[in-house]
């Protein structure tokens, strides 16, 4: 039952980001005026920073909750409520960062949105992962391992789980940043629908990957592949935007 509840919660948190994306992007739309490579790079960097910060916050919050006293049991609702202040703080910081980089309010808002979207899921996933680490530690202790020895067994799990989460988050960030850039550069002027579809696809892939990753370590390489594909997409977007800026592409 706990697993089903957890899964339902993941679905809910997955739906929320998609709705927010639609709302945020629908409100902003493509910027007017000529494309700007500097702005393009700043927007990509800001988006990536946003996700890195939110992932780090999420992993830290998930870990803190999982290892808090009495944290042996599933504490999803608590982690969600704990995530909210982090979301607000993270989003505010990133908005400031966007402003400091001289980005348009829209891009800053998108960066803040990225942080907002990734964090609650990351918290939940990190908590689930750390809970699995605890279970592993308990199994090691049941074999007669002392706490230090049990930690060695758990370390492999921590490394894999955190790597899986960060891979998934980075893959999603790159993929979505590419789509945002395409829109921001006016390359998808009529493509808001395509953007939304792409975002939904990226989010769904991320969701499938991460939930699968947490449940089954066999999906580690698909995560890496997703990250690679996302990076390629981001690179293509940047090259296309650059070429367009230089007038080599209409």
């Amino acid at each position, binding site marked *: 039952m706990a697993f089903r509840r957890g899964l339902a919660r993941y679905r809910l948190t997955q739906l929320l980001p998609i709705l927010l994306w639609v709302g945020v992007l629908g409100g902003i739309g493509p910027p007017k005026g000529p494309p700007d490579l500097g702005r393009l790079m700043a927007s990509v960097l800001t988006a990536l920073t946003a996700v890195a910060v939110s992932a780090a916050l999420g992993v830290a919050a998930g870990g803190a909750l999982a290892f808090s006293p009495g944290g042996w049991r599933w504490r999803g609702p608590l982690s969600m409520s704990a995530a909210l202040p982090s979301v607000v703080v993270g989003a505010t910081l990133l908005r400031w960062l966007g402003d400091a980089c001289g980005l348009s309010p829209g891009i800053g808002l998108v960066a803040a949105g990225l942080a907002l979207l990734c964090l609650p899921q990351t918290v939940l996933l990190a908590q689930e992962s750390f809970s699995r680490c605890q279970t592993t530690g308990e199994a*090691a202790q049941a074999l007669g391992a002392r706490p230090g020895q049990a930690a060695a067994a758990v370390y492999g799990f921590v490394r894999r789980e955190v790597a899986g989460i960060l891979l998934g988050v980075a893959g999603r960030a790159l993929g979505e940043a590419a789509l945002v850039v395409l829109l921001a550069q006016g390359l998808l002027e009529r493509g808001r629908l395509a953007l939304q579809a792409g975002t939904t696809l990226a989010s769904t892939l991320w969701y499938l990957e991460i939930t699968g990753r947490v449940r*089954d370590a*066999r999906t580690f390489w698909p995560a890496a592949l997703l990250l690679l594909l996302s990076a390629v997409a981001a690179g293509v977007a940047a090259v296309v935007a650059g070429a367009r800026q230089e007038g080599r592409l209409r």
Partner: protein
Amino acid sequence: MSAAKISVEKLSLWYGAAQGLKDVSVEIEEHTITAIIGPSGCGKSSFLRTLNRMNDHVPGARISGRVLLDGDDIYARGQDPARLRKRVGMVFQRPNPFPMTIYQNIAYGPRVHGQRSEARLREIVEQSLRRAALWDEVRDKLQKSAFELSGGQQQRLCIARALAVEPEVLLMDEPASALDPVATAKIEELTVSLKENYTMVVVTHNMQQAGRISDRTAFFLSGELIEFGPTRDIFTRPQDRRTEDYVTGRFG
């Protein structure tokens, strides 16, 4: 009648202010399978975890009473929980292999207890996997990740891992509850086959399973041991009305 391997005397357990077990006394005989049955929250798993001091890890948990293993109080001052758990192994509800290869999963316990010889470790790995009826299925993939096994195989791997440290007692907390009927049948068959060499205590929600595999059954309700006796008697001639109501499906 075999000798008592474990004697539990007036054992009570609290989690903070909440009492989980109330004055439980029971004797578990050597080389038998004892089933622990009862509705959810009745204290089955809590009782099981007192037998190898796994409750020591739960914040706020404390006990009164005594648990004797071969006559020695496992909660006496100076007792080492790590050494106790080598003698009293445990298999959990959900398969929980380590993020290592199949070989390393089995070798983990012996290594922790100081076994360094790779030749000896190879012997232990093969022997443990054979005892857990898994050797034929994994002999060619010992260096593969344990996560590549099916759920039922993972649980047998966990049993093999527990056997690798050569325990005297094996505690199993609903070992088949997360498995399909085929995997469950294998775990049951394995459990019965292990009785010859180990004393087993099995928590189960499945009364048919308790009837199939156990020699003696303990029925818990609200932290109290209501009835304990030969499994056949518990299921056919229970002495307590509450036991009868439970085993006949009137509640729970």
